[in-house]
């Protein structure tokens, strides 16, 4: 079923006439999800339904020189398919509220050296990577997990689309990564990281795989002024811990995330648990999440957008979102080139105020409980979508769901 492409090029292509031939391997995958979403958690106490193509992504991993170097690229076309975001109550970030923001066109473009040390250090392996991509912090990109709906905690649990330089060491079941990156998050789907800010933020992640299929990580990141590109905004201190199980037909993840903003002036907490079971032709899944969200002033032009660039440093309050999501995907077509998996996914949402502040969900939404239901189909080609952000492994070999 895999469609790994093995491309053998001559030394003429690689080395301009050198005699030795080298093998270049290219793996790719692509997906898109047409999805119809309906929800009654909408500003102004109304219901809203939308049909959009979400998560249209193409991934490419090219390895060469005997796998001593890899290029990992992912292109995300949400800039074109969800220009105004994906209807998703509770989701937030990058100037969007209750709509998941479109990711940048170049989702990642990383050059990876997976084994710097060779045999010099015995079983210990050093690795490094640089480019635009994921910071070694937190859990997997939601796009590579079974639930289609993005979790509320996306901006608490992952740091991505940054100019990042990372290095790490692997020794048996233990992997330690460290990275420098730019703190500013993307300001539009077409934006690139502010290179002048490279190195103003850092992260480290410790991962342990004590048993086959079981992986646990703890990570910390200091992020300077993520929401103000010139650097005038408050800083984040982020902590994450998680355990992930994937073996046979079972998948599970539990995570805890904590972000202290502006030296603790604001604290955002998140707990999440999700699981899935791979049956012969279908995959039921479930997720429970309870995550805090900052409430910011919305724009006159849209109740789903907030001011960017952010100015002043105040917020309207904090809300806690409790989201229980369940769904099932059925693989109806598994052809040589294309896979089609229709799904239905429903979420119950509860919204509560945390502490003080003027934001009142009862006033804003006209309710504090509601639902979202989505029907759609995953259309995929090539290899299955990988786990993005763990550059020390060949992502497309270790990938699994969705």
């Amino acid at each position, binding site marked *: 079923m895999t469609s790994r*492409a093995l491309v053998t090029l001559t030394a003429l292509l690689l080395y301009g006439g050198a005699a030795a031939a080298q093998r270049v391997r*290219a793996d*790719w995958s692509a997906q898109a999800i047409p999805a119809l979403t309906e929800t009654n958690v909408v500003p102004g106490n109304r219901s809203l339904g939308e049909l959009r193509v979400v998560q249209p992504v193409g991934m*490419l991993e090219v390895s060469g020189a005997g796998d001593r170097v890899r290029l990992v690229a992912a292109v995300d076309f949400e*800039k074109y398919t969800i220009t105004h975001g994906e209807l998703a109550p509770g989701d937030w970030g990058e100037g969007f509220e209750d709509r998941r923001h479109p990711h940048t066109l170049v989702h990642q473009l990383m050059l990876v050296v997976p084994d710097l040390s060779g045999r010099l250090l015995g079983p210990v392996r050093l690795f490094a990577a640089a480019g635009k991509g994921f910071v070694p912090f937190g859990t997997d990109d939601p796009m590579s997990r079974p639930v289609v709906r993005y979790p509320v905690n996306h901006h608490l649990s992952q740091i991505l689309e940054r100019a990042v330089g990372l290095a790490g060491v692997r020794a048996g079941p233990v992997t330690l990564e460290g990275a420098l990156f730019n703190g500013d998050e993307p300001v*539009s*789907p077409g934006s690139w990281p502010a290179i002048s800010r490279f190195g103003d933020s850092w992260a480290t992640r410790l991962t342990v795989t004590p048993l086959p299929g079981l992986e646990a990580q703890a990570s910390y990141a200091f992020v300077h002024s993520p929401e103000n590109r010139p650097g005038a905004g408050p800083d984040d201190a982020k902590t994450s811990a998680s355990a992930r199980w994937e073996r046979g037909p079972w998948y599970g993840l539990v995570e805890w995330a904590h972000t202290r903003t502006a030296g603790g002036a604001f604290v955002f907490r998140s707990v999440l648990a999700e699981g899935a079971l791979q049956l012969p032709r279908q995959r039921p899944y479930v997720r429970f999440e309870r995550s805090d969200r900052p409430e910011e002033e919305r724009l006159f032009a849209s109740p789903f957008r907030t001011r960017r660039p952010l100015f002043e*440093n*105040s917020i309207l309050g904090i809300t806690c979102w409790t989201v229980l999501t369940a769904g099932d995907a059925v693989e109806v077509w598994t052809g040589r080139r294309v896979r089609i998996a229709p799904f239905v996914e429903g979420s119950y949402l509860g919204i509560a105020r945390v502490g003080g502040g003027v934001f009142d969900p009862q*006033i804003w939404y006209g309710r504090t409980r509601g639902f979202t239901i989505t029907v759609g189909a995953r259309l995929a080609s090539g290899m299955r979508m990988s786990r993005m952000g763990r550059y020390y492994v060949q992502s497309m070999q270790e990938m699994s769901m969705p």
Partner: protein
Amino acid sequence: MKQWSLVGLVLGLASVCVLAACGGDGGTGTPPPPPSDIVLVDTIPVTPNYGIHDQYTRDGLDIICAWNTGILIYDVGNGIVGGSPANPKLVGSTTTVGGEAHNTWWFHNPNTNEKRYLFVGQEGPGSIGSSSVGDIHVLDVSDLTQPTEVATFHRNGSGTHNFWMDEPNQVLYAAYYNGGVVAIDVSGTLSGDISSRMIDTLTFGANNTYTWGVQLYQGSLYAIDMLSGFWQLRDSSAFLSVAAGGNNQTERFGSDLWVANGYAYTGTWGGFPRGGVYGNALKIWQLGVGGAPTLVDSIITPDIHTVSDVAVTDDNKLLMFSTEGGPNSGFWFYRLTDPAHPTFLGKYLVGNGIHTATFSRINGKLYAFGAKDPPEPAQFVLDVTALDQ
């Protein structure tokens, strides 16, 4: 299996990069042309760090609070470096500890004839209506070209907002958000930690206090609170107590104030629609014989979220307020022939909004200075002499 060529891969990735680089955000709309009796004299670009929050004009100087960039002192008619409203010239600048320079007051002490101290409010992160942080920083501006921070005032549990000074009595009054109102003795030499100089403080009750601004007027201190409305306070040797008013505005959040002519004008804030209503109102309060406020009228401005600042000219003829959050953001001017019922004179719309605005009379002309919000933050200078007839 699919065959790829390395050249094709590189070209494909390059195309994606070019596509991404070409992607841009839409710009802000161009505002309609203003009336000819409001003339844009100049704009001073301010580094977007985050930008300009407020300005204080006195003696022909324009003192800009430029957040993390600090304090910028421009000559706009003082003559110290030959500046004018049309050609502002930077005199001096400095950053304050912690940045977030929000507002300022240049203390002219009539007892000593000193103009030595500049008080700077720092606005730290807060949850509006609930929490705040931020100190008062004192700069020595004896040498305007080299302002130097010399003292700090700090309160635990709350942060400062707008100021007013009783200069003859050497008392600084500061709105302190959830900390209410604070009176501080600023006589003598100010140095180091001056937190012990607090004379008194007053709040309007738990979950009912988030004070935006204060102003002294005819022996009373007036305070506008975002949650509890417009208050008249007694000020007995800077000891504070409630005289009248308060709990008189529940449909909108309060914002800035100006008191003149026996009337008070208060703005409303709409970062969140209180009870579903945005801050599109300017409220007009008549002050009774004892100074107690009674609401007599309102001006509703469509297509905005917030009336962010209010000012009246020194001759009490002209009212100005700034607006944000909507296509009608900018400067608005009203005539005060009948101070209870101002009449519309003109507007000057500025995309993204004007956060704060103030009048200044320089060399016989009347100017309106305004702080334009990001992106592209700037100090706007309007000649509004023609309106002040």
